[in-house]
């Protein structure tokens, strides 16, 4: 309905967003709605994105660069994983009020898109389809992480 009011071409920006796993299933109008809610931030290599124990308000998606997830203050010895462009992190902030479980640092210069919990909750109210698509992608990512972790635990040293 009212499709004639939103028949514009896909911009490079929307193309970039579509590459991100979290938004891969969204249609063009839906992406445009989400784009209005995203904040883009640039971080320098070594800059802290969030600390362990901090209350999480946003989920981040890496647009470019790499992010190191580690134990608080132990970027070398306490490294958990390093994640690439397109991957989501800090996603538990959307799901519960628990503090951040680990520290996130920019492993190299990176650009992140962030979606706040407040905006996600308002999406649930106003754009339930978009919110459910994002939630499904989040659940898929969490499932994938769980499978990888359990596979890693079973793997012989």
């Amino acid at each position, binding site marked *: *309905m*009212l*499709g004639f*009011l*939103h028949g514009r071409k896909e911009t490079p920006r929307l193309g970039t967003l579509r590459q991100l796993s979290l938004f891969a299933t969204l249609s063009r*109008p839906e992406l*445009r*709605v989400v784009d*209005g809610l995203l*904040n*883009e*931030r640039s*971080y*320098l*290599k*070594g*800059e*802290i*994105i*969030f*600390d362990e124990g*901090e*209350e*999480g*308000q*946003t989920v981040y998606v890496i647009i470019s660069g790499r992010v190191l997830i580690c134990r608080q203050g132990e970027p070398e010895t306490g490294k958990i994983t390093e994640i690439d462009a397109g991957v989501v992190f800090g996603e538990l902030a959307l799901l519960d*009020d628990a503090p951040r479980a680990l520290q996130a640092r920019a492993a190299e210069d990176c650009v992140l898109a*962030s979606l*706040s*919990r*407040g*905006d996600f*909750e*308002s999406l649930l*109210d*106003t*754009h339930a389809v978009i919110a459910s698509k994002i939630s499904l992608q989040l659940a898929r990512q969490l499932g994938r992480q769980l499978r990888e972790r359990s596979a890693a635990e079973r793997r012989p040293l």
Partner: protein
Amino acid sequence: MKPAGPSHAAGSRYLSTGPLVWAATLVCTTLLLLMLKQALWLVVPFLFAIILYYALFPAVRRLTLAGVERETSAAIVAGSFFVLAVAAMVPTLPWLAAQAVNGEEALFRYLEGGRMLVDRTLTALESQFGFLKRMDFHAEMGRKIDEFSATYMQEHLTEALLGVAAWLPALLLAPFLAFFFLRDGRRFLKFLSDAVPNAYFERTLYMIERVDGTARAYFQGLLKLTLIDTICLALGLLAIGMPGAIALGLMAAMLAWVPFIGSVIACGIVVLVAATDFPSDPWVVYAAIGLFLFVRLLDDFVFMPLTVGRSLQMHPLPTVLLIFVGGAVAGIPGLILVLPLAGVVMVVAGTIGGIVNNPRLRARHDHAKALGARRITADLHS
């Protein structure tokens, strides 16, 4: 009104509270009111624009939900409102013109009706209580009312009416401001959060959401309260046989935006109308007063806690204190503005207090600045 969700409950840990934050809230609110007092001609249309923005916002949201772009939605909704408002105004223009011509005459007729009501009441009181007759209470009160209406009323009423007339053109700004709020509000908030360093980003984002949530809850609550009050008062006035019950109910509900004195003024106006239109039936006046008291009680104990009351989450004691401060500093606009303003200032002061009291956040900001400086000067050291 959107209830305070888990994010708000949890996020309140971000906000610093304590005597310093409270003192800062009180001082900043007072200073802001003093500043606003200097630009009342702009504050009033801004206030109406904000109310209009929160009234029209759900419609814009519905259109964006249907897939229409936000800019187009804002234009459609604001344009439709403007057309509807003009369409509603056109049939009332002849009536308004007639009222403007006969306005002064009607005003004095209603004041005379009120004066007669007071006369009748005082005569009845004197006949009931002998000591009042011995004090010549009726004559004394009559003289005082004459003095009041001869000097104060004529001077200040003209001044007030001229003031309202001067503000009316500025009020035309309200729909335009509301349109830009609807179209660019989100972009402006994004612009604000982009200007904040990374270390403080999440807190600022939370603060912006809280400020928006507080203002939205307050003004949407106020609109709901106005609708409920209008319905209750209109039904009550219809039941006691008052003419123009809906218009009187709406006017009284809007006057209630001014804490305390708004309801008293509204009740006074309805009493004047009742006393003039029903000069031989004082029970209509008593019933109107009873109705206003009943609706006031309903407001204070039922409607307000369900609508506006939840939005600010303030203790009643500072709330009353702030209302007095608002009235003393900026008069009637101060009374209307002080609570939402204080709610917003409290969130901002709490967030800044939270950042100031968090050395880790400041250290992270310093670290980021040092990284940036090292990057800029890297080639200078080689």
